[in-house]
């Protein structure tokens, strides 16, 4: 293939100028992977514990959702709850980001939305959506946990 040295090689991550479309593209992969491993394991733990016994479920519940004040490990559990909440917010944001970006994928798959301005706007919209949806979701469940 003819090679014109004046043209930039691509992709060359260290000299690339970042734009929202690049960010959203790599975030789709990062959030998908985080959901697949983190989300998948926590979800399977939750369901399996529920199917085993109330005691098994309570281990999940007290370490993840809410510490048991009567437990010997209450203070460690409270710490774990804080970590779980950070992971939980991260996973819900990942979910909303991956979802919005996935819908953007459907549009791009039809061949639409590649004009520079439209493409850029679409990627910014996925970020705006995921942040707003995460805040709304936690506002709804905040009173409960």
């Amino acid at each position, binding site marked *: 293939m003819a090679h014109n040295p004046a043209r930039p090689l691509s992709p060359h991550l260290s000299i690339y100028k970042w734009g929202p479309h690049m960010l959203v593209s790599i975030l789709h992969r990062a959030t998908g*992977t985080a959901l697949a491993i983190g989300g998948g394991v926590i*979800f399977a733990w939750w369901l399996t514990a*529920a199917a085993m016994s109330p005691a098994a479920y309570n281990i999940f519940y007290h370490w993840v959702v809410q510490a048991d004040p009567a437990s010997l490990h209450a203070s460690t559990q409270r710490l774990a709850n804080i970590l779980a909440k950070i992971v939980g917010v991260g996973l819900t944001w990942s979910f909303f980001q991956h979802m919005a970006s*996935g819908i953007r994928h459907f549009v791009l*798959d039809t061949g639409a939305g590649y004009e520079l301005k439209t493409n850029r706007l679409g990627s910014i919209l996925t970020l705006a959506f995921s942040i707003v949806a995460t805040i709304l979701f936690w506002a709804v*469940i905040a009173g409960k946990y």
Partner: protein
Amino acid sequence: MGTGTSLGRVRGLGSAHSGSHHWWLQRVTAASNLVLLIWFVVSIARLPVLDHQAVVLWLKSPLAAVPLLLLVISVFWHLRLGLQVFIEDYVHEEGGKIALLLLLNAYAIGAATLCVFSILKIAFGGVPA
């Protein structure tokens, strides 16, 4: 890559040895994920509490158990396809690639089966609320 004729590559001799069907299934499961996960997130947000009794009573209804079963199949299939591409893109050494793909299958099939069994056990009344 780069070996064989264009037709040969199209017929599945590229780096992953197949492609368009995988790509299509990723979209099909993405669409079913979209519907089922919106249902799931809304359902979880609407449960007044998330304790054992609430979850068991919720899953006793066929209208909760069946969508959740479909969700498990759709999500674990989708993530198996997705992580496969991730591994094929970044792990170039053949042995490591095969080992990771086997591990991925063990995880996806194992965790999905655990979830399916758990949902059925609760739904069929195998867990006292």
